[in-house]
C-alpha cells in the first residue's frame, strides 16, 4: 500500500503533562520531534487535575523531600520502588520551581511564595504531624500546568500531529521499537512515523469502569499498544478509587476540599473517618477513605433516598475560602448537582480515578521487560512516562498530588534520557515487514460490513462487568466470574461491525479501536487482581484481609500472550538513604 512515511528523531504519543514535558526538552535541543495526539493538546486529561502537585518546598511549614519520600513509600503500601521514589521526591523541588519560571499561575502566600495546602497521607518527621506540601493554582492546577507546558512547546516549535490516532507500535526483528502506524482522524488515512526513539505518554484507562472521573479519551491506548508489542503491564490490579466523586456521576471533587478543612459525614451526621483513621481522619490515604465510604453505605449509613452516598461538608469554611480556594469544584457542584458547597454539603461516592500500574519503566523512562537476562531488560527505542507507565512510584496506592509530580518528573527525565540514547543510536532501525503488516491488519480490522454487535453495546456491557467484578472490594468468586466475562467480551469483539465505514472524521471507528484497547487493559486488571491473594493498598480482598509481605511484596507482570502472569521483586534499596522496611500501615 502506498502511504505517507515520515522520519523523525523522536516520536511522542500523547500530549498531556508527560508528553509535553518530554517534548519541550527535545525540541529545545533542536531535534525533530513528532508529538502525536488524538485530541488538541490542551484537551488532554492532565487539564482536569485539581488539587495540586507535591513538593517539599517548605513554604508553609518546615518540610523535607525525605519525609515526602517516607509518605510515598508508606502510601504505596511498600510496593513502590524506593530508588524511583527517592529520585521523584528530590526532583519535585526543582521541577515545581521550573514550572513557576515557565509561567504557571500558582496561587500565592502572603510571603509571595507558591501557595501550598495539606493533602492526604502527608506527614512531617516520618509519620508525625500533618504536612502542607501540595502546590496549587486554586483547584485548577492541572489546567494551569498543561496550558503552560503547551505554551512552552509553541515557543520551542514542537511538531504536533493533532487529532492523529496511534494504531500500533512498529518493531524491528529483535523487538526494538521503530515508530508507529498512526491515522489522521480528519481524513481517515494511515501514516507511518519512523523514529529512533518512541515515548508512550498516553495517560490512563479509567474508561474501563462505568463510573469514573476520567475523560472519554482515557482508554489505555498506549498500554494496549505495549501489550500487543509483547511488553507486559505491571501491577494492574492496583486501581485507585477516588473517595469523593460526584454521587451517581463520577466527576471529581478534589481532595483539596478536605485539605482545606472539609470532612465527610454519614446519614447520622457522624464524622465517620474518626473511626477508620483516628489520627489523619479525613486526610488518610485515598484507599482508606474510599473503603470507609463504601463500608458506611453497605452498613446502611448512606445518605439520600437510596442511602447510596455520603456527604462532604465544606460549608463551615465560609464562602470566601470556597470561592478563593475551591472555585472549580464549586462550579461543578452547582452545575451537576444544583448544590452550592459554600452553603450545603456535596453528595459523594468513590469513583474510578487512577491506575497505579502500567508499562514497566525505570526511572529514566526506559521500558523494561523480562527477556533473556533478568526481569528488567531495556526494550530498545521504547520509553513510557506518566499514568500509562509504572516506574513504580505509587506502588499499591498513589498519594494525592503525586500524579502531576510523576508525569512532570518522569516526562522531563524521559526527554533528557532520550537525548543520550540518540547520541548512542545515530541511525533508524529497520521495521520488520511482519510488524507493519500486523499494524495494517489492525488498521483495517473494523472495515468488514454486515450485521453484528455495536461498539456502544459491547462497551456498555464491558464497563459494567469491570465495575461489578473489579471494584473497591474483591473476592475470589467475584473476580473469577469477572475474568470469564471479560474473556467472553473479548471473543465478541470479533463480531463488532461498524455501520459507518466512511473516512472523514469517523469517530465510530476511533471508538472501536479504543474499545479493543480497553478490553485488553481490562483483562490485565482482572487477571492480575484474581491472582494476588492479599490485601495491599487499593487491592482489597475480604477473603485475604492482610498484607502478605512474605509472598506478595513483588510486582505483577501481565502478558497478553496466553494471559500469562510473571512477577519481579520490589526495589527496596533507595539511591542514597536507608531503606524504609515494611511496617503496618495506620493513619
Amino acid at each position, binding site marked *: 500500500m502506498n502511504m505517507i512515511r515520515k522520519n523523525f528523531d523522536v516520536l511522542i504519543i500523547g500530549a498531556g503533562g508527560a508528553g509535553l514535558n518530554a517534548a519541550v526538552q527535545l525540541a529545545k535541543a533542536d531535534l525533530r520531534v513528532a508529538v502525536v495526539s488524538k*485530541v*488538541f493538546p*490542551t*484537551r*488532554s*486529561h492532565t*487539564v*482536569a487535575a485539581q488539587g495540586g502537585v507535591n513538593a517539599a*518546598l517548605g513554604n508553609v511549614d518546615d518540610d523535607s523531600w525525605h519525609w515526602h519520600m517516607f509518605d510515598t513509600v508508606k502510601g504505596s503500601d511498600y510496593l513502590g520502588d524506593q530508588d524511583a521514589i527517592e529520585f521523584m521526591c528530590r526532583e519535585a523541588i526543582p521541577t*515545581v*520551581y521550573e514550572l*513557576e*519560571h*515557565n*509561567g504557571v*499561575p*500558582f*496561587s*500565592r*502566600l*502572603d*510571603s*509571595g*511564595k*507558591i501557595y501550598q495546602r495539606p493533602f492526604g497521607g502527608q506527614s512531617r518527621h516520618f509519620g508525625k504531624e500533618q504536612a502542607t506540601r501540595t502546590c496549587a*493554582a486554586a483547584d*485548577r492546577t492541572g*489546567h*494551569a500546568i498543561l*496550558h*503552560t507546558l503547551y*505554551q*512552552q512547546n*509553541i*515557543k520551542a516549535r514542537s511538531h504536533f500531529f493533532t487529532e492523529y490516532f496511534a494504531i500500533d507500535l512498529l518493531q524491528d526483528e529483535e523487538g526494538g521499537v521503530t515508530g508507529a502506524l498512526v491515522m489522521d482522524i*480528519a481524513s481517515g488515512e494511515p501514516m507511518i512515523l519512523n523514529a529512533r526513539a518512541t515515548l508512550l505518554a498516553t495517560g490512563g484507562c479509567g474508561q474501563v469502569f462505568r463510573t469514573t472521573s476520567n*475523560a*472519554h*479519551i482515557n482508554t489505555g491506548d498506549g498500554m494496549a499498544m505495549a501489550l500487543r508489542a509483547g511488553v507486559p503491564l505491571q501491577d494492574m490490579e492496583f486501581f485507585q478509587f477516588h473517595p469523593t466523586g460526584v454521587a451517581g456521576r463520577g*466527576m471529581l471533587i478534589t481532595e483539596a476540599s478536605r485539605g482545606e478543612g472539609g470532612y465527610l459525614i454519614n446519614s447520622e451526621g457522624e464524622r465517620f473517618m474518626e473511626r477508620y483513621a483516628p489520627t489523619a481522619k479525613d486526610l488518610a490515604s485515598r484507599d482508606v477513605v474510599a473503603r470507609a465510604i463504601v463500608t458506611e453505605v453497605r452498613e446502611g449509613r448512606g445518605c439520600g433516598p437510596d442511602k447510596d452516598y455520603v456527604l462532604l461538608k465544606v460549608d463551615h469554611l465560609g464562602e470566601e475560602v470556597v470561592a478563593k480556594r475551591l472555585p*472549580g469544584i464549586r*462550579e*461543578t457542584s452547582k*452545575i*451537576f448537582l*444544583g448544590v452550592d458547597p459554600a452553603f450545603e454539603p456535596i453528595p459523594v461516592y468513590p469513583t474510578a480515578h487512577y491506575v497505579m500500574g502500567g508499562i514497566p519503566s525505570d526511572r529514566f523512562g526506559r521500558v523494561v521487560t523480562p527477556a533473556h537476562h533478568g526481569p528488567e531488560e531495556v526494550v530498545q527505542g521504547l520509553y513510557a512516562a506518566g499514568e500509562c507507565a509504572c516506574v513504580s512510584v505509587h506502588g499499591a496506592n498513589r498519594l494525592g498530588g503525586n500524579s502531576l509530580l510523576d508525569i512532570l518528573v518522569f516526562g522531563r527525565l524521559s526527554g533528557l534520557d532520550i537525548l543520550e540514547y540518540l547520541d548512542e543510536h545515530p541511525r533508524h532501525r529497520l521495521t520488520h515487514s511482519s510488524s507493519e503488516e500486523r499494524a495494517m491488519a489492525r488498521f483495517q480490522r473494523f472495515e468488514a460490513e454486515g450485521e453484528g454487535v*455495536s*461498539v*456502544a453495546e459491547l462497551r456498555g456491557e464491558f464497563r459494567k462487568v469491570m465495575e461489578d467484578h473489579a471494584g473497591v472490594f474483591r473476592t475470589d468468586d467475584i473476580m473469577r466470574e469477572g475474568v470469564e466475562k471479560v474473556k467472553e467480551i473479548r471473543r465478541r469483539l470479533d463480531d463488532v461491525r*461498524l*455501520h*459507518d465505514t*466512511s*473516512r*472523514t*472524521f*469517523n*469517530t*465510530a471507528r476511533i*471508538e472501536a479501536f479504543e474499545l479493543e484497547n480497553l478490553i485488553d487493559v481490562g483483562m490485565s486488571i482482572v487477571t492480575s487482581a484474581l491472582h494476588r491473594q492479599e490485601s495491599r493498598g487499593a487491592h482489597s480482598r475480604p477473603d485475604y484481609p492482610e498484607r502478605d509481605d512474605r509472598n506478595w511484596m513483588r510486582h505483577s507482570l501481565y502478558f497478553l500472550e496466553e494471559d500469562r502472569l510473571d512477577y519481579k521483586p520490589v526495589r527496596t534499596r533507595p539511591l542514597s538513604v536507608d531503606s524504609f522496611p515494611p511496617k503496618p500501615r495506620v493513619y
Partner: protein
Amino acid sequence: MEFRIYRYNPDVDQEPHLQTFEVETDRGMMLRDVLLEIKRRDESFAFRHSCGEGVCGSDGVNVNGRNRLACITPVSDYRKGPVVIRPFPGRPVIRDLVVDMSDFYRQYHAVDPWLKRKDPVPEQESLQTPEERARLDGLWECILCGCCSTSCPSFWWNPDKFLGPQALLSSWRFLADSRDQAEEQRLDDLDGPYKVFRCHTIMNCVDACPKHLNPTQAIGHIRNLMLKKSV
C-alpha cells in the same frame, strides 16, 4: 424533546441538512448527554467531546444561535423544543458538528502566549504578591474552547487579521502578569488597525464564554495600555 442537528458528511452528502431527533430528557441532563444518546442511535454522528465537566474545552457547539459548551449546558435551559444544534459559525465544517479550528489556534499562537522574562532565573520561585496574582483571575482559566472567537462577527470577517477575543484575552493574561517583562514588545506586536482594533464591543464573546470570563474587558485594558504608552 425535539432536537434538530446539523448533519454533513462530505463522503456521502451533497450538502448539509438538519436531522430531527426526539430524545427523552430528564432533570440534570446536559446537552452532551443528548448528543451521546443520538450518537448511540446513529454512530455516524460526529462531534468532539472528552472530559464532560467543562475543563477540556472540546465540545463547543452552537445552540439556538448561541455558542455553548455542551457538557455544562443543562437541557433544562431550553424549556421547549425544538433545540437546534449546529457547528460553530464561520468555521469550515469537517463533518457534522466538527469544525476546522486552525485559524483560531493560529491567532492564539500569534500573541506569544508564554511568559517572557529578562532577569536571570532565580534559584527558587519568583515572588508574586497575592494581589498581583489576583490580577490573573478571570484570565488564566480560559480553556480554548473557541466559543468566544467563533461568535464574534469581527472574527468571522477577518479571522486571519483580527486576533479575536480568545487570543486577546490571552495576550492580556501575560501583560497583566507581574512576572512578565516584555510589555513593550507585546504592545508593539499588537499595533495596527486589525489585530486589536477590529473589536467593536459587540460583546458576543462575553455571552458565549462558558467559564464566565470577559474578553471585552481584557481588550479594553489592552487599548488603554496602548493609549497610555503612545502618549
